[in-house]
C-alpha cells in the first residue's frame, strides 16, 4: 500500500513534467527539447517569488502560468512557425523542431545562468509529514499530486467536451484534414504549444517545492518527459498521465522491493518493452 501511494505520488510528479510536452508534440508537432528548461524557469520563478516575497508557490502559479503561456506563444510564433511553414512533411518538421529546440535549450540555459547564476536553488515549503493510511509522505508531494490530477482532469474534460478542445484533438489527429474542415491550424497549434509550456512551467513551480535544482538540470527532465510522452502515445493527454503513473509505480516498486539502483534501468526497460510491443504507445494511433 505504501509502495502504491508513493508510486502514485511520484507518478503525479512525472505527469506534471510530461503533460506539457505531450500537448506540444501531440498537437503542435514540435518535439520541444527545451521543455526541461521551461520547467526549470517555472521552478526558479516560484523560488524567487517565495524567497523574495514569501508568497506560496501555489499562489505564484497565478503569475507563472500566464507568463509561461505568453512566452511560449511568442516562441512558437517567431521561432517555430517559420519551420512549420516551410516543412514539407511531418517528419521534416520533427527533425527541424528537434534541432531548433535543442539550440533553444542552450539559449535558455545561458539566459538563466546570466540571470540567476549556476548555484543550486532550493527552499522548504510544506516539507512536513502527511499521514495516509498510517504511512508518512511529504505534504508538498501530496499537494503536487493533487494539482497534477486537477490539471489532468481539466485538460481531459476540456479536450473531450469543448468545441475548442475538439479542434485541438482534430489538429492532433491530422493537421491537414483539420485545415480542410475550417480549423485555423496555426492558431490552434500556437495555443497548444503555449498551453503546453504553461503546464510545464506550473509543473516546475510545484516540483521546486521538494527538489533541489540549478540552471543546468533541465536536460534530465526533458529525457524523462520524452520517455513518458512516447510511452503514453503521442497526441492523447490521457496517455501521458497513465504512462506517468505507470512509470512512477514501476520505479517505486523496483526501488522498494529490489534495488534503488535499478530505477533508471527499469524505466528504460519499460520504455523499450512498450516500444517493442506497442510502438504507438499506450494510447496512440498507429502511424498511417
Amino acid at each position, binding site marked *: 500500500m505504501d509502495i502504491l501511494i508513493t508510486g502514485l505520488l*511520484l507518478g503525479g510528479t512525472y505527469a506534471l513534467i510530461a503533460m506539457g510536452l505531450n500537448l506540444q508534440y501531440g498537437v503542435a508537432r514540435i518535439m520541444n527539447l527545451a521543455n526541461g528548461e521551461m520547467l526549470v524557469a517555472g521552478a526558479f520563478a516560484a523560488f524567487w517569488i517565495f524567497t523574495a516575497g514569501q508568497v506560496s508557490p501555489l499562489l505564484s502559479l497565478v503569475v507563472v502560468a500566464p507568463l509561461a503561456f505568453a512566452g511560449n506563444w511568442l516562441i512558437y510564433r517567431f521561432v517555430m512557425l517559420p519551420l512549420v511553414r516551410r516543412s514539407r512533411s511531418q517528419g521534416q518538421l520533427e527533425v527541424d523542431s528537434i534541432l531548433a529546440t535543442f539550440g533553444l535549450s542552450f539559449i535558455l540555459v*545561458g539566459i538563466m545562468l546570466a540571470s540567476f547564476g549556476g*548555484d543550486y536553488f532550493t527552499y522548504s515549503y510544506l516539507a512536513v*509529514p502527511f499521514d495516509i493510511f498510517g504511512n508518512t*509522505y*511529504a505534504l508538498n508531494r501530496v499537494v503536487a499530486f493533487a494539482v497534477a490530477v486537477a490539471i489532468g482532469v481539466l485538460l481531459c474534460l476540456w479536450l473531450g467536451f469543448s468545441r475548442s478542445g475538439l479542434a485541438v484533438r482534430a489538429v492532433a489527429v491530422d493537421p491537414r484534414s483539420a485545415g480542410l474542415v475550417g480549423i485555423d491550424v496555426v492558431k490552434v497549434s500556437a495555443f497548444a504549444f503555449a498551453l503546453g509550456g504553461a503546464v510545464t512551467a506550473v509543473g516546475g513551480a510545484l516540483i521546486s517545492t521538494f527538489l*533541489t535544482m540549478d540552471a543546468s538540470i533541465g536536460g534530465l527532465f526533458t529525457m524523462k518527459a520524452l520517455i513518458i510522452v512516447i510511452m503514453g502515445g503521442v497526441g492523447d493527454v490521457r496517455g501521458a498521465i497513465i504512462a506517468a503513473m505507470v512509470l512512477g509505480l514501476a520505479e517505486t516498486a523496483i526501488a522498494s522491493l529490489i534495488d*534503488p539502483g535499478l530505477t533508471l534501468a527499469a524505466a528504460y526497460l519499460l520504455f523499450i518493452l512498450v516500444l517493442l510491443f506497442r510502438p504507438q504507445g499506450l494510447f496512440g494511433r498507429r502511424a498511417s
Partner: protein
Amino acid sequence: MKHRSVLAGALVATLTGFLSLGVAQAQNVIKIGAVAPKTGPLAGGSTVTHWPNIKLWVEQVNARGGLTLKSGKAKIELIEYDDKTNPGETIKAVQRLATQDKADFIIAPYGTGFNLAVAPIFAKHGYPQIVVTAITDQIGDLTKRYPSLFFTLGSTTAFTKSVADILAKLHADGKIGNKVAMVNVADAFGIELAASARPIFKAAGLDVVYDKSYPLGTQDLSPIVKGAKAANPDAFVAWSYPPDTFGLTQQAMIQNLNVKVFYTAVATAFPAYGGKFGMAVNNNLGAGGINPDTAEMQTYSASHKRITGKAPDGWASATMYASLQILEQSIEGVGAADRAAVIDYLKNNSFKTVMGDITFNSQNNDHYWTVGQWQDGKYYGVASTGRAGEKAVRLKGGWK
C-alpha cells in the same frame, strides 16, 4: 560551442595586444587561465566552490597593483572557459590556453575526473597543477607520473576512514550501537567512496545493515530512506552529491529517521544547506570541514561575501582560495612567470594560507579536514589528518 566568455576573453586579449603595441610595455600583465563547469551537472558545485574564489583572488591581487615580480608589478588577466562538465571540453580548453592564449599559468579545473584528464597536458606544457577538488586514492602514482601535479584536499580512503573512526569511537564509548545504513549516489565519487568504505567499516567492527545505491538525479528518495529506516540503523551514512544530499536530508526529516549520526557527503558544507534546513540539521555530519574561527578564515569569509555576494562553503572553498594564495606566493617567490621555477618552488617551500600552513610532501598536502559538523548554525571541522581546531563530535538528537 563557444561560451560567451570565450569571445569576451578573446576580445580582451586582442584589445590588450593592440593597446600594448601603442603603450610600449608600460604595464606588465600576467595571463592566468581557468576552466571549470559553468553549465552541466557539476555547475552547481563549481559555482559555489570554484569560480567565486578565483574571482575573489584576482580582484584582491589586482586591487593592490598585481603580482610583485622582479620586473615590477604585473596585473592578472584572467581567461575563463566553461567546460560544460565535459572532460573533453576541459582538455580542449587547457590545450587552447596553453597553445593559443599562451597563458602564463592555468588554474587546475574542478572535479577529480577533469583534473586527471588534463594532467598529461599540464605536464606536457610544464604548467604547475595545484589541484583542489580532486580526491583519489592514486595520489602516490599520479604525483610520480606527473611532476607538476600537486594535491591539497586528501584521498578517498582518508575520508571514509575518518567516518569509520568517528563511528567506531562512539560505539566504543557506548554512545551508539554499531548498525550503519549506507547509501551512495551511483556516480564516480559516490561509488568510489562506498567501495572504499565497505572494507573499512567492516574492519572497524561496524555492521552495515542497509547498503544501496541510487542513480544520479533520482526524483524520489523516499523508498531509500524508508528502506534504511526499516533496517533500524544507529547511524546513516550517504555518499551523496548536492541534489541528493538535500533530498535525503529532507526525506529523513519527513520520515523522522531517528539516528544518532547522520552523514551526507558533498554539499553538506554549503551555506545553502544550513540556510534551507536551519536548526533541523544541527549535529549533521558532512564531508570535509574548516576551522571558521581563525582570524584568517574570518577575514577570508568577510571578503568572500563582500566581493562575490555570497558566503564560502565549509569545505573546499577555503582550500581553493589557499591554492591560489600558494600560486601567488610561488610566482612572487620566483619573481617571474617561470613555470619550471614555480614548480620547483612549490616542492620546496612552505606556504601561509587561510587554511594554515601548507607544505607539499612529495607533491601532496598531508594535513586536511575530512569530516565536519553543523553545530549551532555554523559548520565546523571535527576530524582531520592534522589540522588545529577540531571540535568534538556531537550526537544528533532528532530533527527539530
